[in-house]
């Protein structure tokens, strides 16, 4: 007795409507499996049933992205599914984009697990692999016989909410999530083995491929500093004594904004560092060493700068993920922009 209701998404070709000449066909649905769906039914666990198939032309989908997505979602929702399978799309670019977009939207809106399959160079794979599970397939429909069991297996796991293994174990495209595992060998032994391979010119797998780093283009220089409003922002953890916002000593989950009105000098009775990544003794003695309020007030007095913005922002850079740091930077930047600040001095540790 089938209990898991599966809907299958296909394009016009695999939906058996026609080739390129039918690529502008609008979304419609059929009861039960169609085309590769019949093979999929065989491969799926006995308690899973393809209750319906939604078919849409690739050209129509990609040229009417929003409208097509809405229509497809409505058709899928009509089957009251527990799981969506799309494709596999192999190396068909527009089909891959459609499968990725449909899966992502269904996952988000209908809150059910989704899975699709693609060749890893399909543009849809790059676009959607971080959001959804994409089973790695060959580059053409000739690989259908290999792709179907892999897709069915992952669908079963997802439908049951089972713990997902690694991309290598499960056959999906890596999603950019770093997860801890226990290897057979300790790290040092893995390092020695990797060294020997590298020395012998044999292939080896790095455990962490280097990321591509952002580079920020500097803004043009401020023309007249003497009229400029300058703000201080620090990742060095300088906070009012007692750390009122409880900013973490490492892996900060927040930033704080603090008033500098009437403050000309930071001292050990009023400010301290919350940062756990450097010797705090000297910053605690005189927090101006990390957040130079005293010097800024002096420059203000001398007319070198127009004035110091009365709010400063602080977080802890120590162990804080780049994604979080970016988020705080955008939020702080927005606020400073609204305050018509002309320039920011960023200090670290």
């Amino acid at each position, binding site marked *: 007795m089938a209990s898991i209701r599966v809907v299958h998404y296909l394009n016009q070709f695999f939906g058996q409507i026609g080739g390129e000449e039918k690529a502008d066909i609008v979304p419609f649905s059929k009861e039960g499996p169609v085309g590769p769906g019949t093979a999929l039914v065989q491969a799926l666990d006995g308690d899973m049933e393809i209750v319906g198939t939604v078919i849409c032309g690739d050209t129509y989908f990609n040229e009417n992205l929003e409208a097509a997505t809405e229509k497809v979602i409505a058709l899928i929702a009509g089957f009251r599914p527990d799981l969506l399978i799309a494709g596999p799309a192999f190396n068909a670019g527009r089909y891959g984009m459609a499968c990725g977009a449909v899966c992502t939207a269904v996952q988000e809106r209908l809150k059910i697990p989704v899975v699709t399959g693609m060749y890893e160079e399909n543009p849809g794979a790059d676009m959607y692999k971080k959001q959804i599970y994409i089973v790695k397939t060959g580059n053409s429909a000739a690989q259908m016989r290999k792709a179907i069991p892999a897709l069915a297996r992952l669908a079963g796991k997802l439908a049951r909410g089972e713990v997902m293994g690694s991309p290598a174990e499960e056959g999906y495209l890596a999603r950019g999530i*770093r997860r*801890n595992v226990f290897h057979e060998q300790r790290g040092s032994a893995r390092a*020695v083995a990797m060294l020997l391979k590298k020395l012998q010119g044999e292939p080896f797998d790095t455990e962490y491929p280097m*990321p591509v780093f952002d580079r920020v283009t500097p803004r043009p220089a401020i023309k007249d500093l003497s009229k400029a409003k300058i703000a201080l922002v620090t990742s060095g953890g300088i906070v009012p004594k007692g750390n009122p916002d409880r900013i973490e*000593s490492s892996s900060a989950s927040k930033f704080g904004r603090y008033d500098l009105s009437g403050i000309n000098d930071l001292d050990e009775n009023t400010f301290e560092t919350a940062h756990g990544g450097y010797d705090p003794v000297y910053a605690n003695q005189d927090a101006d060493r990390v957040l130079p309020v005293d010097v800024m007030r002096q420059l203000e007095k001398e007319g070198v700068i127009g004035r110091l913005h009365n709010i400063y922002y602080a977080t802890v850079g120590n*162990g804080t993920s780049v*994604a979080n740091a970016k988020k705080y930077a955008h939020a702080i930047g927005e606020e400073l922009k609204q305050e018509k600040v002309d320039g920011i001095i960023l200090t670290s540790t």
Partner: protein
Amino acid sequence: MQLELGNILVKDVQWGSRSEIRKGVVYVNRQELLDTLKDDRLARIDIDIVRPGDAVRICPVKDVLEPRVKVEGKGQVFPGFFGNAEMVGSGKTNVLKGMTVLTVGKIVGFQEGIIDMSGSGAEYTPFSRTINLVLLCDQADGLPQHEHEEAVRMAGLKATRYISQLAANVTPDESVTFATKPLAQQMAEFSGLPKVAYVYMLQTQGLMHDTYLYGLDVKKILPTFLYPTEVMDGAVISGNCVSACDKNTTYHHMNNPVIADLLARHGQDLNFIGVVATNENVTLLDKERSSNFTAKLVESLGVEGVIISEEGFGNPDADLIMNCRKIEALGIKTILITDEYAGRDGASQSLADGNPLANAVVSGGNANAVIELPPMPKVIGYIDAVEIIAGGFDGALKKDGSITVEIQAITGATNELGFNRMGALEF
């Protein structure tokens, strides 16, 4: 230089009226040990024994050490602290295997760690699998932080030395010999095997971030050459807790797994020429100077490849990448061991610096991963610290005594010497 390590397999550690070792059991006269540790800077010292499986949490942990004593050969273990910086690493050394001396006490900075002897946290720290003699040391009122750190560090060294001396006349259960030769001779050995070295980066960023080599603050060294066996006699000791997860405790240094695993294949698959110890200072000039010297020294050793281990994260990522880049530029292959700060969801980039030449990396795991630790009936130390140590946060400690923290708060969890089996992979 040749060193024979004689392992005495410790079956248990117990209190006794006399400090001695009988049939693999280490008996400790508590009062005598306390007297040895007397220091005006420490207002309170307490000692406890914990064993694998105990329902005990220790926090905030500062350092972990292994008792070793010289039986033959020059010098003393922990040279520079004891025995006048005589060169160590040759002769015979007895090791009390299976036990540690562990220091805990009021928090100095933010970087101290948690060790759980049982429960979900236990599998992340190697020290849940050893019998630990735990020294709880609290500082005298008003003691400045730098002296606080030093006083507790010295208590750990002194207690470890006291225990180790009990092993001087005990016949080891097993022994193993390690040997490397002076440079010119070692280079001529094992024709046809690739010559390799180990670049040993040591954390040197200031209070709670220092390391000592023959008693010298490593901030002040230029990169230097060591025989692998010197480290086994305690030539390198820890004065730091970067974050607990990727701090190399003194125990890690004495049992450096990179050195052990290179020696295991020495003469079989490779020719291990020696160790280049370097630092991780805070200024750019220091970083440039140290990485330039490291690359020069590696080049002068005539090796074809190196393993580079990092200690800490963030700022030292810059030192790691400089070392990698400059050594690769000489045509020498590099393998890096690091850990990751990829965010709690694992979706962020893991390092603060990178380079396409760093194409062979071993990961000790994502330190930001979150873990729930169950309540423990017994706590040695100060549990409130979990809210402010690196990896903890406001609200980390629940009313029932359970704790939610990032694994960076667990001592040794993501060790960058490759001590553990854990690592991170892309999912």
